[in-house]
Structures are given as structure tokens and as C-alpha cells.
């Protein structure tokens, strides 16, 4: 009995179909003016990868600087700029759009059986906004960077810095609208464009997750926008909304900022969870355990996500009593995540599991996200938050969630849908290796930070007491491994574009609508709009299909 489910067409005869969304039209303009969600997704994938590696390079610099206790590699202000740019690039230009704008953009219309997103022009517009935001960030970097930290804390950002706060703010503002439009587009599409028979509870969990994330994008981002606008006004004209010298309250800014930036965390992680649901189900050959629970837990996370932001401010002199409310709600929002983890785990139960690369990344996600989530409870609990917040513990925590969770999910998704996207398989063995390297490197990098954080090493320090060095050395060493782990996929995926095996329609024997059409798909996805008469993850249906094919081919 084989250990893989990969079933590729006979390579000697198989070809990647001549007509597909990539070959439909040629020329730069056909890309820059395209309305096709798959092409826009491709554009996004390229630009996002670009910024991911910029952010990664900055992260490398940070780790190098922290190799020694003194700030000897770079001056403190340079270091401050580096970690600020790292934060801005990674959060606003990579994490927030990563899965939704690439995989979501590519898959949601196909998964619900539509020809395209509801608003292709808006979709393209949101990519252009993203690019503008990106260019502004690059401009900021070239013209001396900014050192507010990605949180733009007032009055530091308004009165005490003379770096490019404005251009960065504008970049965040623009990028924010890009994500608003993406989310808006998804919600409309999922509501209005579902194929006949595609009821809400037949939707793949990937779609549910994106629906939840989109709600957060649409309702959260504008509050960040107005906060940024007020900061800009305060910098330029000196109005006094947040200025303590004029009677404003700087903590109000924090409220507005975190009202978006906490839900933003769920904007980042929810789509990743969607990916994991698809991957786990496919490689366990099993319907996701407790489909409804997982679906609703996504929505629950989205809704609760709006009620917990103040747990970023427990020590900032907010009212002690309000921390009770927010801490309690934070505990509630932790529960749906737990539900998801256990449901995925039990999806494996009595499955028929194989261990292709996406599954490995998915396992990585489940392990690391569990740690990230649990350490999140440490910070949501008011008492322990006092000691742990603003230290490397919190850095480790959100890197476990964002890098260990989100990035693993992103890579899982990229590998999983790569054959669909390009029509060719990635090389399995080396990619499995890459997954392993990433996992090891990641733990080496970030686990020591939990300890050094508990010991009290503050975040955003260019120089630190000598006794913390050894753990930082571990961390930096791990970061180099991690770097390799991220470079490998870039290389072999590029290689596979030309030399990868032809994938055929459904290499994974998966059940989603996207796997029933040619890969790469046609410009409008379907020859005719499918009529859906089955639930998601219906593997019996898939078996019946195969039998049918066999009999017809025999007959």
C-alpha cells in the first residue's frame, strides 16, 4: 500500500493545458489591467513575496545586532528604525494580505463556484493600493526610515521624532484601504456569487474563515485609518486630540489603534486556519471533525475579536476595573481557538493519513499555534501580563502565532495549491526537508525568547544586559536556519515552474470544487457554472466520481 495519495497523470503524455488564465492573454498590460482574480492573486503573490523577504532581511539584521549585548553592529537609532520597518513591512505588507489576497483571492470564487470575485475592478484597485503602500514604505526606508515602532505610540510619534512618520502613516493608511476593499469584495462575493446549491453549510471552511476575517477587515481598519489621520494632523497642524500638553489623552490613541490592531491579529490568523482545515481534511481523507463547530468558531473569533483590545494596555494606566472586563472577554476568545485545534486533531482520528509537505506544515501549525495560543492566555491574564508584557515573552508569543502559525499556514497553502495554480508539482522530498528545517529553525529562534522574556529582557532593546546573551545567541543561530528554511521554497518553487511534474486536475484527490477543474484554471474558472449537490469534504462522492470515470472510459 503506497504512502502517498498523489496521483499524477502519465507524465509521458500529460501536458499543462494550453489555454489557462496564465496564457489567455500576453503582454504586461494584460496583467496590469486584468480583472481576473487569479491573475491579481498572482500579482499579489509576487509583490507579497518581495516584501516578505525585505521584512525577513530586516529581521536578520535585528538578530545580528542582538548577537552581542552592546549595540555594536548598528547605532541604537538605526536599530530602532530597523525593527520599526520590520514590523510595518511584515504586518501591513505581508501578514495582513498574505493568505487572503493570494490564496483567498485565487480560491474563493472557485470554491463557491463563481466566475470571478463580485468586483474585479475593486480587486485590482486594492492591489494597486497595496503597491502604493509598499512603495511609500520603500520610500520611507530609502529616505532615512522611521523609528516610531509599528504602533505609532503618541506623543512619541507626534511630538518627539523627526523621522518619516507621515509617509509611513500614509503607507499604512493606503495599505489599510487595500485590505478594506479585499475584505469587502470577499463578503459580497461569498454572499452573492455562490453557485446554485452551494448553501452556507456546504462552503469549505477556508471560505468561512475568510468570511470572518473579511468582517474584521471591513469594520476594524477604518478606525486605524482615523487614528493615523489624527496623528498626521497632530504632527502637521498641531491639533490637540491626543496631546497631553493640550489636555488630550494619549491613551485614547491607544484605544483607537488597538481597536483595529487587535482584530488585525485575527485578520492575519483566521485565513491561515482556513488553509489548515482544507489541508488536514485532504491528507486525512476525512471530513473535518465537527464542521459546524469549526465554521462557527471562526465567526465567534471575529465577533469576540472586537471586544478584547484593551488587553494590550493593561499596564498603561487604564482603569483597573475595565481590565477585568477585557481580560474576561480575552479568555472567552481563546476558547474558539482551542476548539479548532482539537477539531483538527480529531479529524486525523480514523483517517487515512499521508505526510506530503502541506500536511507537514499543517502539523507544524497545530503544534506552534497551540503554544502561541496558550502563551497568549498568559498575556490575557491581568496578573501575569504585568510581568510578561513589553518583554521578549510577548515577542516570542506573537511570533509563535504569526510566524509559527500564520506563515506555516501560508506555506502549507502555497504548496497545497501550487499544482492548481501553476499546473506543476513542487519537488516533494526537498520541500519536506524545507518544512522540517523551517520547523527546527523556528523553535530555535523563538523558544529561547520565552525564557529571556520571562527573565525580563525588554523588547525593542538594541543593547541588553550581558546575562541574556546566550539565549539571544541561540535565537540568532536559529534565525539563520529559519532563513534557509524560507529561501529553499523560493528556489525550488521557481524551479518547479518549468521542470515540475505535470499535476493534472486533482493531484491530491481532494474534494473541493477547485480540484474538479483543470489546473491552471481557465480565465473564468468553469466551463459552465457547477450545480452543487454535496457537502464539502465529501470523499465518498469523490470515490463515486472516480468509479464513473473508470466505467465510462471502459465503456
Amino acid at each position, binding site marked *: 500500500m503506497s504512502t502517498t495519495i498523489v496521483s499524477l497523470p502519465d507524465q509521458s503524455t500529460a501536458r499543462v*493545458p*494550453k*489555454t489557462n488564465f496564465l496564457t489567455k492573454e500576453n503582454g504586461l498590460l494584460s496583467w496590469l489591467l486584468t480583472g481576473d482574480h487569479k491573475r491579481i492573486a498572482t500579482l499579489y503573490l509576487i509583490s507579497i513575496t518581495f516584501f516578505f523577504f525585505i521584512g525577513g532581511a530586516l529581521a536578520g539584521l535585528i538578530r545580528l545586532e542582538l548577537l552581542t549585548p552592546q549595540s555594536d553592529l548598528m547605532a541604537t537609532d538605526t536599530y530602532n528604525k530597523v525593527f520599526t520597518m520590520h514590523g510595518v513591512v511584515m504586518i501591513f505588507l505581508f501578514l495582513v494580505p498574505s493568505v487572503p489576497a493570494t490564496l483567498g483571492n485565487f480560491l474563493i470564487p472557485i470554491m463557491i463556484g*463563481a*466566475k*470571478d470575485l*463580485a*468586483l*474585479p475592478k*475593486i480587486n485590482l484597485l486594492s492591489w494597486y493600493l497595496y503597491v502604493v503602500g509598499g512603495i511609500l514604505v520603500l520610500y520611507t526606508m530609502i529616505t532615512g526610515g522611521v523609528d516610531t515602532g509599528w504602533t505609532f505610540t503618541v506623543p512619541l510619534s507626534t511630538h518627539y521624532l523627526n523621522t518619516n512618520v507621515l509617509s509611513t502613516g500614509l503607507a499604512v493608511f493606503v495599505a489599510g484601504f487595500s485590505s*478594506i476593499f479585499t475584505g*469587502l*469584495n470577499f*463578503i*459580497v*462575493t461569498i*454572499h*452573492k*456569487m455562490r453557485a446554485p446549491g452551494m448553501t452556507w453549510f456546504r462552503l469549505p471552511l477556508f471560505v468561512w474563515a475568510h468570511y470572518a476575517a473579511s468582517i474584521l477587515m*471591513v*469594520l*476594524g*481598519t*477604518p*478606525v486605524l*485609518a*482615523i*487614528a493615523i*489621520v*489624527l496623528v498626521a*494632523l497632530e504632527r502637521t*497642524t*498641531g*491639533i*490637540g*486630540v491626543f496631546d497631553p500638553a*493640550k*489636555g*488630550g*489623552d494619549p491613551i*485614547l490613541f491607544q*484605544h*483607537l489603534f488597538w*481597536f483595529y490592531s487587535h482584530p488585525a491579529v485575527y485578520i492575519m490568523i483566521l485565513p491561515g486556519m482556513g488553509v489548515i482545515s482544507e489541508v488536514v481534511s485532504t491528507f486525512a481523507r476525512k471530513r473535518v471533525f465537527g464542521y459546524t463547530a469549526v465554521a462557527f468558531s471562526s465567526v465567534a473569533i471575529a465577533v469576540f475579536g472586537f471586544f478584547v483590545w484593551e488587553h494590550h494596555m493593561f499596564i498603561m494606566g487604564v482603569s483597573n476595573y475595565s481590565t477585568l472586563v477585557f481580560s474576561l472577554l480575552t479568555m472567552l476568545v481563546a476558547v474558539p481557538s482551542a476548539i479548532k485545534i482539537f477539531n483538527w486533531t480529531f479529524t486525523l482520528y480514523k483517517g487515512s493519513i499521508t505526510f506530503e509537505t502541506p500536511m507537514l506544515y499543517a502539523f507544524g501549525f497545530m503544534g506552534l499555534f497551540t503554544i502561541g495560543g496558550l502563551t497568549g492566555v498568559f498575556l490575557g491574564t491581568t496578573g501575569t501580563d504585568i510581568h510578561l508584557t513589553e518583554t521578549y515573552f510577548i515577542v516570542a508569543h506573537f511570533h509563535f502565532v504569526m510566524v509559527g502559525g500564520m506563515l506555516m499556514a501560508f506555506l502549507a497553502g502555497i504548496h497545497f495549491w501550487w499544482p492548481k495554480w501553476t499546473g506543476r508539482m513542487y519537488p516533494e522530498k526537498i520541500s519536506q526537508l524545507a518544512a522540517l528545517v523551517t520547523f527546527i529553525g523556528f523553535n530555535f529562534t523563538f523558544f529561547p525568547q520565552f525564557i529571556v522574556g520571562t527573565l525580563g529582557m525588554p523588547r525593542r532593546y538594541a543593547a541588553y544586559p550581558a546575562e541574556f546573551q546566550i539565549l539571544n545567541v541561540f535565537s540568532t543561530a536559529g534565525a539563520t536556519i529559519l532563513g534557509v528554511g524560507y529561501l529553499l521554497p523560493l528556489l525550488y518553487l521557481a524551479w518547479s515552474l518549468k521542470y515540475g511534474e505535470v499535476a493534472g*486536475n486533482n493531484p491530491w484527490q481532494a474534494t473541493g470544487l477547485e480540484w474538479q477543474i*483543470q489546473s491552471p484554471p*481557465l*480565465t*473564468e474558472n468553469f*466551463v459552465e*457554472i457547477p450545480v452543487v449537490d454535496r457537502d464539502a469534504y465529501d470523499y465518498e462522492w469523490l470515490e463515486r466520481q472516480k468509479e464513473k470515470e473508470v466505467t465510462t472510459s471502459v465503456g
Partner: protein
Amino acid sequence: MSDSTAIVNGAPADAHEHPHPPYQRHHFESMGQQVDATSFAMWLFLLTEVMFFGGLFTAYLIYRNWYYPAFVVGSHQLDIFWGTANTAVLITSSFTMAMGVWSAEMRRKGLLVFFLVMTFLLGLAFLGIKTIEYGEKIEKHHVPGFHYSVQSFVDSRSDKEVFEKYHDKSLPLDMARHTEVYFSLYFAMTGMHALHMIIGIAILAFMIVRARAGAYTTGHITFVENFGLYWHFVDIIWIFLFPLLYLISRHGY
């Protein structure tokens, strides 16, 4: 596989078999679906707008409770006449806009153009009045950050006409300084609102041109409808700004 691609290569022929109205985007199954989708999208966009202004309203609420006296005398600086006039203007413009949508639905080109122009003019009128009000503030140095002066609050008599109206007590210096917060919010809120008006007016100008070319009287009025939604939303924002900034703090403290 191969023949399926063949069919798709014949996509235009395929489209020819069941014709769409020219303005139906090809990825929609029916015109109804397109209309629903676009107007739903517009509503979601308005949602983001609500949250955008939401931040400002929150700030206003908090500071009004902190610095009530400053907000009282601050609002006394606003001319209730102009405020009311502006509200009337904006409501009327909302009405003409609604009529515009109606005449588009009825495919009455002349009427449509007429109402759009009316809305356009009323919008300009609103901005005109706002400019007058802003001008006053600039004269009195009540623009935060630009040589802001609390003279007319620490010594209320120094500000003749306002004093005759309201006979405010002079504020102690510390509270008087907080009027700057009031005006910060006043300019932030009305400024954001005015910005939305300007965008709206620009779109209106564009629409008028298209409408005269008969663009919206062929039965496809989504654009007009959605713009209507936007315009009414801007109206609603003002419906709240007007009492908050002009009315609710008129009486002493």
C-alpha cells in the same frame, strides 16, 4: 479535457447565445445579481465610513465630558444660524438626490440631469457656508495649532457679539486652554465631513456629464443609486455633527 477547453475558446460565441445587456459584467449570472452585489458592496463601504467617523465621535464624547465648560463656550463660537442653514441645505440636497434616483428609475433624462445639478449646487452652497464659518475661526485665531488664542474665553467680554448673545463667564486659563481640544475636534469632524462632500461633488459633476449623455436612463442605474447612498450617508453624518457641535452645549455650566 481538450474539448472542454475548445468550448471555452468559443466563449464569445457562448455569450452570444444568451445576450446580456451591454452593462452587465460578464462574470455575473444575471443583472439582478449584479445590482444586488454592487449595492451590497456600497453598503459595506458605508459601514467602514461609519467606523471611520466612529473614532471621532468617541473622542468627542470623552472630551466633552472632561472639559464641559470649554465645550460650552467653544460651541458658543459657532453661529447657530449658519449651522441650521447648512443642515437645511444638506437635507434638501439629499431630497434632490433621492429625486434624482427616482427620475433615473423612471428613465426621465431631463429630470435626472436637473436634480443632479440641484444636488451639485446645494453641495457647493454647503461648502460655501462652511468656508464662511471657517473664515470666522481663522480671524479669531480659533484654529488649533495656528497661533491659537484663548483670549475670547479667558476674557469673554473681549469677544463682543458672542458675549452679547450668551453672557458667558470668563473661563479660568486652564479650562480656557482646553477649548483648543474642542476646536481640534470641530475641525477634524467638519473637515472630514467636508472632504467627503468635496469627493461627492466631484463625482456629481462627472455624473451630470454622463447623465446628459443618457448613461443612467437606459435602466441601468446602479451607479446613481449607489452614489445616492453615499450622499445620504454624508447627510446623516452631518445630522449628528450639527447637534453635537452646535446645539447640545448652548446653556451654561
